[in-house]
């Protein structure tokens, strides 16, 4: 009761204005305010003073305060080791550049490896044809290269089958029924080819799946896949090589 009749100090009113008071203080002081004109006026004048301050416009920026990129130097200094200040300034950008060149190197290597694997695939498709096919090897390779994918005509498939290392009497029936409709050529041989290949001594081609439209258990598929890999690999190599040359 006694405190309610006591006038509030400027500090109390100021804190009340900001809501930086306890709940108990707030109710007690506000109770006094409702009855005291003098404190109300003082609070109002404080509120107006604060309102004037808040109404001050933000001064116009004379310029931008962005840091120059060389400011990385003092960072190294600040970080501790003063003698290391000279080499470290370049640290951040240098590292990023190195990261990028590592990345490019990795991509280039990957591309090269892909091209190599592509060559291996092409060879694995052609070499058996070469060793067996004798004089007509060039015809075999051209017909094989044009017959990969779904564009293969049914006439070409029997032409290449005798040149495979597999015994012709085993492999031919497995391919022939599949070769007649062009669309089913991709999937069907995979099912049929596994059984005959399990019997002969060529496990490397036996369980290979159909991969990206290329049936890897047929030489055509391997040739096509090999060429694709080779082309992609060379493209990758060229792309990443050129970027490297641009940024020395």
């Amino acid at each position, binding site marked *: 009761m006694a405190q309610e009749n006591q006038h509030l100090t400027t*500090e109390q009113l100021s804190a009340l204005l900001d809501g930086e008071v306890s709940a108990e203080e707030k109710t007690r002081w506000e109770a006094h305010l409702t009855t005291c004109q003098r404190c109300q006026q003082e609070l109002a004048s404080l509120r107006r003073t604060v309102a004037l301050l808040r109404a001050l416009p933000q001064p116009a920026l*004379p310029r931008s305060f962005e840091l120059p990129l060389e400011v990385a130097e003092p960072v190294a200094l600040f970080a501790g080791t003063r003698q290391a200040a000279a080499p470290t300034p370049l640290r951040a950008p240098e590292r990023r550049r190195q990261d990028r060149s590592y990345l490019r190197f990795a991509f280039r290597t990957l591309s090269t490896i892909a091209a190599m694997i592509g060559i291996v695939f092409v060879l694995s498709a052609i070499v058996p044809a070469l060793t067996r096919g004798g004089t007509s090897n060039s015809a075999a390779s051209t017909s094989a290269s044009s017959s990969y994918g779904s564009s293969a005509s049914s006439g070409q498939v029997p032409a290449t089958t005798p040149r495979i290392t597999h015994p012709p009497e085993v492999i031919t029936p497995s391919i022939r029924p599949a070769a007649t409709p062009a669309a089913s050529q991709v999937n069907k041989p995979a099912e049929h080819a596994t059984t005959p290949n399990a019997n002969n001594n060529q496990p490397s081609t036996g369980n290979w799946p159909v991969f990206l439209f290329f049936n890897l258990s047929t030489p055509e598929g391997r040739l096509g896949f090999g060429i694709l890999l080779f082309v992609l690999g060379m493209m990758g190599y060229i792309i990443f090589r050129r970027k490297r040359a641009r940024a020395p």
Partner: protein
Amino acid sequence: MNKLALDGEEELIARSQRGEVAAFNQLVLHYQPIVYGAAFRLLGDPDTAADVTQDAFIAAFRGISSYRGGSSFRAWLLRIASNMACDHWRRVRRHPAESLEFLTEEDETPSSEALNALADSSAEGNPEEMLLTQELQSAIQQGLEQLPLDQRVAVVLCDIEGLSYEEIADSTQTSIGTVRSRISRGRGRLRAYLKQHAELLPRNYRLT
């Protein structure tokens, strides 16, 4: 808008802590109006405020690894800037008599211009949205500059930058009680100062 944290601020801070100046500069672009504004209100001089702002951002970048995210980044920046502004003020204006002389000169300036400007100011609505005349703005600025440094910092951080008492206590390494007392004394003094310039105030805007 400026009082809100910047989108992706945490990531920018983390990248700045790894030494990326470009990331830090995005923070600078966002916060420079606030930091410069505080420096200007504390020091009252555009050139000095610009120097202090630049120094504050450099110091902030150097020390950003010490920012732990406990307080808001804005409060952390304002702490650096207000400390640097205070250092500068103490270093350069060691003689309070000078500024007092300056003040009395200012008191005697004729106010006819001010009254004219007052006539077309639309200030009777919401005081928060009122447009202050140039004269009133400089009067408030003068009033701020005649405050003792600790009160000025507390008032600028509270009433212009909108920091909480806790953040101000943190920035100025004092208790909340001290902040409360500094703010109220600063406001009281400023009110007394502005009463002398009542002719600059909007109509019906008496500070009794």
